[in-house]
């Protein structure tokens, strides 16, 4: 087991910074999730850690050893690929045995380890099949097995669940979580599904455009997003963002209304570079009123989506769509005028210019 440290890692393709100055530390035994939208550099980062791509700058160390110039095979890592990358012409058994054969282990030991891994993953009955004769979930287990047999210091996983259907995904999610728990391995797990990251990881690293935006526990990322990108990326439905203007101790809308701010929030707003502010609020912190209420701002209902446990209302406020969760019993119609009350304690204020979260200093 080992820790993984990235220092100012850069990868360029021509003029494109696929990974731009990323620094992060994965502690020994930690499970971290690398999340971000498509094309943000997650796979590239993972491939750099694996040594499959040469770096353009920076250092990577695994277990206190700088590995910049080491071959993938010498880095003591295992990787699960997005499309599994099982060797199509080898049986499951041979797939699992391949990493061990490459390390010149004696035959009996290989057999023992393969059988152990197969038992652990419940694929013993599949050992004689070829990958194309397996279902998606089974292939996924084999890919996991091929990573497990070797007992590596670090596991790298690139969207290992993205090819599975929703139900299987939930099931494999908990299985991977359990393996991590049992093996206590260091895991870097790439996903574009923030829910996966939140549910599985000890820490999550949010990337966008090659840059690391925030690296913290899921709870902290959820509670204190550093900028509007993270705010809108984490959480489902996403945090609603309303562009407004700071005037004294209130936020003013061009539509005419004003939202008074608490002292703390007013101090935050005063720190913005211009008076343009983005107000952020999660659906569960908002209250909906059917009549004008002091401190609440007016809006118009756009759609109402009952999901069973909760009903989501989408309300137009100052041109922005705001998600609000309601009791399933709530009676509300599209095009109705409503008033929305914000929770001063749990609202977020961002600088519209820099997109960064505002702090009260």
């Amino acid at each position, binding site marked *: 087991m080992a820790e993984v440290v990235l220092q100012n890692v850069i990868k360029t393709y021509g003029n494109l910074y696929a990974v731009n100055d990323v620094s992060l530390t994965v502690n020994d035994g930690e499970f971290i999730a690398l999340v971000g939208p498509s094309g943000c550099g997650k796979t590239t980062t993972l491939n750099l850690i694996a040594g499959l791509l040469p770096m353009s700058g920076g250092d990577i160390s695994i277990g206190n050893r700088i590995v910049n110039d080491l071959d*993938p095979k010498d880095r003591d890592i295992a*990787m699960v690929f997005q*499309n599994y*990358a099982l060797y199509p*012409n080898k049986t499951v058994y041979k797939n699992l045995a391949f990493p061990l054969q490459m390390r010149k282990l004696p035959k009996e030991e290989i057999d023992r380890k393969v059988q152990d891994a197969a038992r652990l993953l419940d694929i013993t009955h599949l050992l004689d099949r070829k990958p194309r004769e397996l279902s998606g979930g089974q292939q996924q287990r084999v890919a996991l097995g091929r990573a497990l047999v070797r007992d590596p210091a670090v596991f790298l996983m690139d969207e290992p669940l993205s090819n599975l259907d929703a139900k299987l995904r939930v099931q494999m999610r908990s299985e991977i979580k359990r393996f991590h728990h049992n093996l206590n391995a260091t895991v870097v797990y790439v996903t574009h599904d923030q829910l996966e990251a939140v549910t599985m990881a000890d820490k999550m690293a949010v990337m966008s455009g090659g840059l690391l935006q925030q690296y913290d526990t899921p709870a902290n990322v959820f509670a204190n997003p550093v900028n509007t990108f993270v705010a809108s990326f984490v959480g489902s439905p996403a945090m609603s963002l309303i562009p407004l203007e700071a005037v004294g101790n209130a936020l003013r809308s061009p539509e005419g209304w004003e939202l008074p701010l608490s002292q703390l929030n007013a101090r935050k707003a005063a720190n913005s570079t211009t008076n343009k502010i983005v107000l952020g609020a999660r659906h569960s912190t908002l209250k909906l009123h059917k009549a004008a209420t002091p401190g609440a701002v007016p809006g118009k209902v756009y759609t109402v989506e009952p999901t069973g446990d909760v009903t989501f209302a989408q309300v137009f406020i100052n041109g922005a769509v705001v998600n609000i969760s309601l009791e399933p019993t709530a009676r509300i119609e599209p095009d109705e005028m409503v008033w929305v009350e914000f929770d001063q304690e749990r609202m977020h204020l961002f600088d519209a210019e820099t997109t960064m979260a505002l702090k009260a200093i």
Partner: protein
Amino acid sequence: MTDTTATRIRPVVKKPVDWWRWAGRVFLTFLLLFTVLPMAWMILTSVKSQFAAMQYPPQWWPAEPTLNNYFKLLDPTQRIGQDFLRYFWNSFYVSLLTTILGVVVAVPAAYAFSRFRFPGRNFMFFAVLVRNMFPAVVFLMPLFLLMRWMGLVNTHGSLILTYLTFGLPLSIWLLKGFYDNIPIQLEQAARIDGATRLQAFLLIVMPLSTPGIIATSIFSFIGAWNEYVYAYTFLSRDDQMTLPVGIQRFFTEFATDWPGLMAATFLMSVPVVVMFLVLQKYFVRALTEGAVKH
């Protein structure tokens, strides 16, 4: 389907004659005759005696079929047989060596063209492809000089070297297509599993490209087996000649022995036709690969 039962509600429409289908059948019959009849006549002639072949009107069916022409060609105790068998062996040897060398040279090149981005890659790739555009004859004179300078005239080396370059462009193109279709993740997985780049290639990629290698091999082999122009120009010694050229010697020396020539032609075609029939799938794939992208 044509009988109507009272219970059937749908009115029965008499299916119209599908003229297109019939036109297709007639056309195919015509093509089949066009293709097969010349070959049939070759075989029929080859089992006639010299006398029976030279008649007008011709014997449509051999009156006294004989395998004498074949016995003569395959009899190692006679001069004709010795020559024919030597040509046969020469052709086989040259074709086989061309094929093996072709694979050895084409595989790494195709792999590099598929996987690496090195400066000049596109230029080299097109240069290799454009080679296909030039007729053998254009290269004949300078190559003849070159072979003379290298001392390769009247050796099989000169043929193998030139045949190699016929086959290479197509082989590289074909194999590149195969490598393009092998996900790069497989190699990455192998390298993480502890393989070096070379091991990843040999143990994972090569086995997956076997169909491509078979396909290109058939092509090189058939191409070399059938080649005529270079063999005709580079070889003048009897014992070096390959079949297409050697057969011509038969023709000029035994000018009027048509049945013998037909038998020789038949024997010469047997290996490639058998090879084609056995490995048809790969052959057709090699032919169409690249032209048909899905």
